[in-house]
């Protein structure tokens, strides 16, 4: 449940929000818990919020790993399960 996945910031939006690419899928993420995040930087995302900035090398290592163990698919599935209305 404390799963956090690395993502790349694609665009910054109003109200401290950003679109972040996680495993090839763009997701809206809150940046309120991190400081000075720029486009193309990497963040660790947990439950819809960036909880830390990470460097590119670390992020890429983690992405490879998450791809291998299928956790990015699980995140995408969590998203599909989402029941907002």
């Amino acid at each position, binding site marked *: 449940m404390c799963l956090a996945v690395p993502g790349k910031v694609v665009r910054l939006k109003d109200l401290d929000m950003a679109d972040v690419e996680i495993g090839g899928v763009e997701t809206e993420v809150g940046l309120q818990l991190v400081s000075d995040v720029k486009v193309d930087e990497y963040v660790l995302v947990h439950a819809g919020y960036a909880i830390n900035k*990470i460097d590119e090398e670390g992020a890429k290592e983690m992405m490879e790993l998450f791809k291998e163990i299928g956790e990015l698919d699980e995140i995408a599935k969590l998203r599909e399960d989402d*029941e907002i209305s």
Partner: protein
Amino acid sequence: MRYLSEYRDPTIAKKLIEDIKRLSKKPVKFMEVCGTHTVSISKNGIRQVLPENISLLSGPGCPVCVTANGDIDKAIAIAEAPDVIFTTFGDMMKVPGSYSSLAGKRADGADVRIVYSTLDALKIAKNNPDKKVVFFAVGFETTAPTIALSILEAHRQGIKNYFIYSVHKLVPPAMAALLNLGEVKLDGFICPGHVSVIIGSKPYEFIARDYKISCVIAGFEPIDILQSIYMLVSQVENGEAKVEIGYKRGVSFLGNTKAQEVMEEVFRPCDADWRGIGVIPESGLALSNNFKGFDAVEIFDIDVPPTREPVGCSCGEILRGVKLPYDCKLFGKACTPENPAGPCMVSTEGSCAAYYRYGESS
């Protein structure tokens, strides 16, 4: 059972295993206090590649699993109240309370919705102004700041129909509680990676200092975990007990101070009831006085019958590290992921689910 097939670099893994075997002389017990570590250890067969004198125990590292039955019963009672939309992370849906589960109540007609984030729960609140939208705030220090932000955001936007039912738990007090119980003689903790992204390594210092127990914060790759075991073994063999960070790409000494500030603004520490352990002082988070208006406990008159524990279920002992999943007589028989008796089999990060899924046996 897979062994080293998934290691990104088997050469490094093999070298680490050899180093551990060479260095490790004393019989030791290490406990991982993170469900994601439990899964990684089971999935990668790490227990099987370690020398026999090293035992790995799974601790109370899954927030879903440590939620007390009474708290699940109260969540279900809130979900059943009139005009409520109850929102929750997916993991909590199937966890059985004393008499039912959120999934069961949804099948009976309660409006229970799975969300990925509190951002989504807030959207539901905005879209349904005539309903009371309650979010089941489950999670450790990793998750609590994201919940705190939703409260600040609801406050800022004047959203009056958003509430949380907080059963948040804090990891370091639970580690101390296990040591105080003294049931399991531990030599070291593999400390949780993403909890520590938020809190840093500092809050574990008292464990090393006062209890003389080694602590290493680990990442989630198999190699990270092997490295953290190597670091723990080194400490034990050298007669040291200190806090080390084996997950440097995510964790610092002080952690994410911005997240800590948000958490401290919205929450205050409170006593919390842990499944299998009982009430641990100052190990939970309740909304602070300024944000009481968002507290479901203040809004709803929650009255539940006495709790009932599943007969024969050993989740409590498993969460304390006293038993391993396959020591439970229900494991794999009367309790499977399809038909779980206790929470450790429900949550994907529960010890029982991990042992079952990856075929670990005695």
